[in-house]
C-alpha cells in the first residue's frame, strides 16, 4: 500500500497561509525524528507500553500529514503492542520511513 503525504489538513488550519503551514512543517521536522528515534530505542529495549505511548503520539502526526491509512495502522499497532502483537510492526515502520523521506525534502 502506498502512503502519500497530503497537506490538506495543514492547509485548512493555516487558512491557506503558506508561512503558517511551513511553520507547522518545521515543527514536524524537529519533533518527528526525535520521536522516531525514541520509538526504536524502546522497541530495542522491549518496553512495549512506553513504545505504544509513543506510537500514540506519532499517529497524531500521521493524521496531520494526511496519512490516513498510516494513521489506522498506528491505531491498531498501538493496541497490538500492549498485548505483544507485532503483526503491524513492519507496516507501521514503513509509514515512519515515508514521513522521514518527506521531511528530508522540505
Amino acid at each position, binding site marked *: 500500500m502506498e502512503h502519500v503525504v497530503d497537506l490538506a*489538513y495543514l492547509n*485548512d*488550519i*493555516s*487558512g491557506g497561509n503558506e508561512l*503558517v503551514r511551513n*511553520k*507547522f512543517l518545521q*515543527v*514536524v521536522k*524537529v*519533533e518527528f525524528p526525535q520521536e522516531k528515534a525514541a520509538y526504536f530505542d524502546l522497541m530495542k529495549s522491549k518496553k512495549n507500553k512506553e513504545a505504544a*505511548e509513543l506510537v*500514540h*503520539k506519532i*499517529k*497524531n*502526526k500521521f*493524521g*496531520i500529514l494526511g496519512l490516513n491509512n498510516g494513521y489506522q495502522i498506528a491505531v491498531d499497532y498501538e493496541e497490538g503492542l500492549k498485548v505483544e502483537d507485532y503483526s503491524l510492526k513492519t507496516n507501521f515502520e514503513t509509514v515512519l520511513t515515508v514521513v522521514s523521506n518527506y521531511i528530508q525534502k522540505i
Partner: protein
Amino acid sequence: MNCIVIDDEMLSQEIMGQLISTHSKLEIAEKFPSCIAALKYLGDHKVDLIFLDLHMKDFSGVDFLKTISSDQKVVLTTSDPSFASASYEYDNIVDYLVKPITSDRFEKTVSRIEAAFAEQKAPKAASADKEENGSAGDELFINIDRRLIKLKFKDILFIEAKGDYIHVKTIKEDFRVHSTLKKIKDKLPESLFMQIHRSYVINFTKIIDIQDNSVLIEKSVIPISRSQRPNLMQRLNLLQ
C-alpha cells in the same frame, strides 16, 4: 477569555495555538508541555479555559482533571475517543475534540465555549436583576440540557419526583430535571408550596378541589399522604 494549552507534543500545541488565534474572544495566556507545569502556573494565575490533552506521561490529563477545581472549564483534546463517554461525568468539560482537529470542528467548540460561559453568567445576571428590580425570591432557574430556564413560582403547579428526576409542571409546559424533590423544595417559598406526598410538592394556591385522599390541580389528581393531610387542611382558608 484567557486560556492555556496543555499538550506534550509541540506540533499539537502549535496547532491549538493557531486554531485559538483565529478567534478574537479567545486569548492564549500560556502553553505547557506537562500538567505539572500547568498546575504550578494555575497556583498563581486564574484562567477561563484549559485546552487539555489526555495522554501525557507521568501525570495524565485524567489525573489533572481530578486535581483541578470542578468549576474550571476544560476542553479535552486527544487522539483517543475512548474517554468520551467518561468525560460526561465531569460537568466542567465543555467539549471533547479528537485530533486532528479541523477548523470547522473548532468553530463548534467555540460556540460551545460561549454557551458554557453564558450559562455560568446567567444565575449571576439573574441575581443582579432580582436585586435591581426588588423581585428577589419570586423565581428559580432550572438546568435543562445545559440551558438555564427561568420559572416564576406563581407559574408552577406542582412537582413530581420520578426516580433520579423531578417533573416540574407549570401553567404552560412540563420540565424534566435531574434533581430531587428535597432540593427543589428547599428553593421554593413555604408561603406557596408544600409537600403533600413523598413524591409531590404542590403550589397550594392552584388547588381546585380536595377529596379525601387527593387534590385536583388543573387536570391532575395528586395523592395526599395520610400524614400530610392535616398540615394541608390547616393551611387552607376553610369555611366550616
